């Protein structure tokens, strides 16, 4: 590779955020270089400053709240931090372009996909009429989108297609550098693999450099030439991918590499004749779609079709599938929080016709933990109030007894009981998820439904939360329904796994069988995309 002039050179960059009197140091003294045609991945956990670094390059931060006390960024020898705004605009989208994590919000919902690509081209190049149309079709071809989709609005496209449109916009002016900020995080694994492959192909064809921001080491392994590991705004280690994965130098890098969910599910005593704690037969959930005229039959969308499941005491049922496959809807139906057809038996009661009031006494036995640890705790209640809310409904205790229970449960989920008077916003994602688990466990339920409980967490935290869940299961003979799109996580905790696709359970069996001897081609693809280490 050409070593004389790096395409991008970041020299002792620091970025601070100043809010009132407080100063947050997001990036501290970071230096790196990118050669033309190279892929550099910046890896780190959330809050490590990797996105801020990427945004600093194009000065996309909220100035003057953000500012750079030191550092220089050279792009092809030109300094970017002090460049005048007009010149910077001609570089943005033209020489350096960027793709973002969330393709739904990054596209304007009111404009057609083709027009949005056209706009980017128009900004920097004088193309009109037929020529412009030709160029748009060419770009759509490059990102493998049928050309008739040029007239589609963003909501008519799937997540993967939207991300392809974003990529088409980013490469429209053949940039020298593409900054990809978590480009595949919001996508399903199979789509993720396609997008990465696409990026790699385009890179080879156009010879552009890629700066990839990600927290996902498996993505890094697949596409990056060199890796920079960040923690707390500082560089921990920089090496080429091969070296980093085989001989990591720093302890932090090692811990990141080791933080893969592994191990086996909790040992399960299967004495025959045990009755399932929860079972469903022919469970379907239908949503009405569109408007209905008088007396017209409603058009129905089958979110869940004929689901048969059963869970033994102490067992974990893993539910995997891509987004939109009906996993969460199934959980909501089992909780009786959406209406459904078919039988549900919970603790020997047929609950499928229970309403809110008849269901209430059973709620203490079936609890739920949600995905987003930031959304699932009321920001205006202190931790003690949040955890003890269910106790107030289901158990008649004095305030002292309640307090004691809260203290006990916090210790059980490895949190300091002194935090019970504080508020959710003071805690990290992992701590919040522990609090959410404490809230579920304090009622001593028999079954907990875990809806993507680890998806919003960093890998190392995921491992800890999984460990905690297993410990609790061992101790209290809990049953779990574990919903996740992350196959590695599911494998490490589930005894039994079902695979869902478009509302249907397409494969069901012991985890061992599903992961080692999948029968359906869909399951095979899913496993290949998630668990293989190459593209």
């Amino acid at each position, binding site marked *: 590779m050409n070593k004389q002039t790096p395409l991008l050179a970041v020299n002792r960059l620091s970025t601070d955020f100043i809010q009132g009197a407080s100063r947050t140091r997001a990036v501290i003294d970071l230096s790196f270089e990118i050669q033309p045609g190279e892929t550099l991945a910046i890896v780190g956990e959330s809050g490590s400053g990797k996105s801020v670094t990427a945004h600093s390059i194009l000065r996309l931060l909220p100035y003057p709240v953000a500012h750079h006390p030191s550092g220089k960024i050279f792009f092809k020898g030109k300094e970017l931090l002090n460049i005048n705004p007009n010149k910077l605009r001609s570089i943005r989208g033209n020489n350096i372009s960027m793709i973002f994590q969330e393709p739904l919000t990054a596209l304007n919902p009111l404009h057609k996909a083709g027009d949005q690509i056209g706009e980017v081209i128009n900004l920097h190049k004088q193309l009109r009429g037929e020529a412009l149309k030709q160029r748009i079709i060419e770009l759509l071809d490059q990102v493998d989108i049928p050309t008739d989709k040029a007239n589609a609005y963003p909501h008519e496209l799937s997540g993967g297609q939207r991300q392809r449109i974003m990529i088409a916009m980013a490469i429209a002016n053949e940039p020298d550098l593409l900054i990809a900020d978590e480009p595949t995080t919001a996508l399903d694994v199979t789509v993720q693999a396609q997008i990465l492959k696409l990026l790699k192909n385009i890179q080879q064809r156009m010879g552009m450099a890629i700066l990839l921001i990600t927290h996902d080491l498996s993505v890094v392994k697949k596409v990056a030439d060199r890796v920079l590991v960040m923690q707390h705004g500082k560089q921990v280690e920089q090496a080429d991918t091969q070296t980093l994965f085989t001989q990591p130098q720093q302890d932090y890098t090692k811990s990141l590499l080791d933080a893969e969910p592994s191990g086996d599910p909790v040992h399960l005593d299967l004495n025959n004749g045990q009755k399932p704690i929860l079972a469903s037969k022919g469970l379907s959930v239908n949503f009405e779609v569109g408007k209905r005229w008088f007396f017209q039959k409603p058009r129905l969308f089958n979110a869940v079709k004929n689901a048969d499941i059963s869970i033994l005491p102490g067992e974990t049922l893993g539910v995997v599938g891509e987004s939109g496959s009906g996993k969460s809807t199934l959980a909501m139906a089992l909780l009786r929080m959406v209406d459904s057809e078919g039988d549900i038996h919970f603790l020997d009661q047929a609950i499928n016709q229970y309403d809110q009031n008849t269901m209430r006494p059973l709620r203490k036995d079936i609890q*739920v933990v949600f995905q987003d640890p930031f959304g699932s705790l009321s920001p205006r209640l202190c931790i003690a109030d949040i955890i003890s809310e269910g106790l107030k409904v289901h158990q008649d205790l004095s305030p002292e007894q309640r307090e004691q229970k809260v203290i006990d449960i916090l210790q059980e989920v490895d949190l300091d009981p002194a935090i019970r008077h504080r508020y959710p916003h003071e805690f990290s994602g992992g701590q919040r998820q522990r609090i959410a688990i404490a809230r579920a466990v304090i009622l001593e339920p028999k079954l907990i439904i875990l809806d993507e409980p680890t998806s919003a967490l960093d890998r190392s935290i995921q491992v800890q939360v999984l460990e905690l869940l297993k410990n609790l299961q061992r101790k209290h003979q809990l049953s779990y329904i574990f919903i996740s799109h992350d196959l590695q996580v599911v494998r490490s905790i589930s005894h039994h796994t079902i695979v869902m696709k478009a509302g249907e359970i397409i494969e069901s069996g012991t985890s061992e069988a599903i992961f080692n001897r999948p029968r359906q081609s869909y399951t095979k693809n899913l496993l290949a995309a998630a668990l293989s280490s190459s593209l």
Partner: protein
Amino acid sequence: MLFNSDNFSAINQRRWLTFKSNKRGYYSTWLFLLLFVLSLFSEFIANDKPILVSYEGSYYSPTFFSYPETTFGGDFETEAEYSDPFVVDLINEKGWLLWPVVPYSYDTHIADLPSPAPSPPSRQNWLGTDDQARDVFARVIYGFRVSVLFALALTLGSSVIGVAAGAIQGYYGGTIDLLGQRFIEIWSGLPVLFLLIILSSIITPSIWWLLAIMLVFSWTQLVDVVRAEFLRGRNLEYVKAARAMGVSNSVIMFRHILPNAIVATLTYMPFILTGAITTLTSLDFLGFGLPPGSASLGELVAQGKGNLHAGWLGISAFAILSIMLTLLVFVGEAVRDALDPRLAQ
């Protein structure tokens, strides 16, 4: 429960700082509070009864109690008329009187005006008198108090009803929401001012009647905002978590969603307050508002219109209304900015 911890106050502290950094709104708040507190003590500022009377060694406070004239050695069993020089002389013989700064109340008809009413501003009547020989300054400060108290009561009442209605519509959604929204659309399409005029000509409007009638039409203002917050709130994960825990609907609404809606409500309140003041003033101006004789700014505006040659009437009314409304709008802007998370830096 909501504000019991110093940890939670971090966000409120930031809001308070934002509020304070808006100098215009901050000083407007203090000025308005000062005026309001002063007006609450109007009886000690402008009154035709002395604050304190000392007579034969004992003290009397005519502001709070009514004493017959015979107490001070007069002839009548009725309440002493302190503006009567005869009574004043009687008291001064054996004691003294402490008068408020302005020796007239809002309904005192001044008998010994130097020129026919309305008389121009003078040392005795700082803002002159109106066409019924009543002191304008006294009427302005009493009128200010009535307007603000009325508006506060109306705002409070319509907030309580509006929040409850919005909460129920937003939380339950579906048919309840549909019916509620259609009802509100029709209800707020009614020509309020005309209905108020018709209603107040059927019943003699006391201040409570007026409050009730205006409440019937003003509660809809907050419904949309609160409904939107609840529609959003009922799908939040912590609300789902509470439902999965078996928490009852009313507790969920009150504990989990309402605090989110409160911010939106608080943002609107100062503007509802100014709206209420304006409505009351317009009704008074048209003569359908407070009962005749009460201290009302709208009536003063009407007098200004009726007596264009007596400029002090119109100017006083204009000045006090614009000061009051401007201050409230400034306060409202500052509150809105302080509570708006997007503007907070």
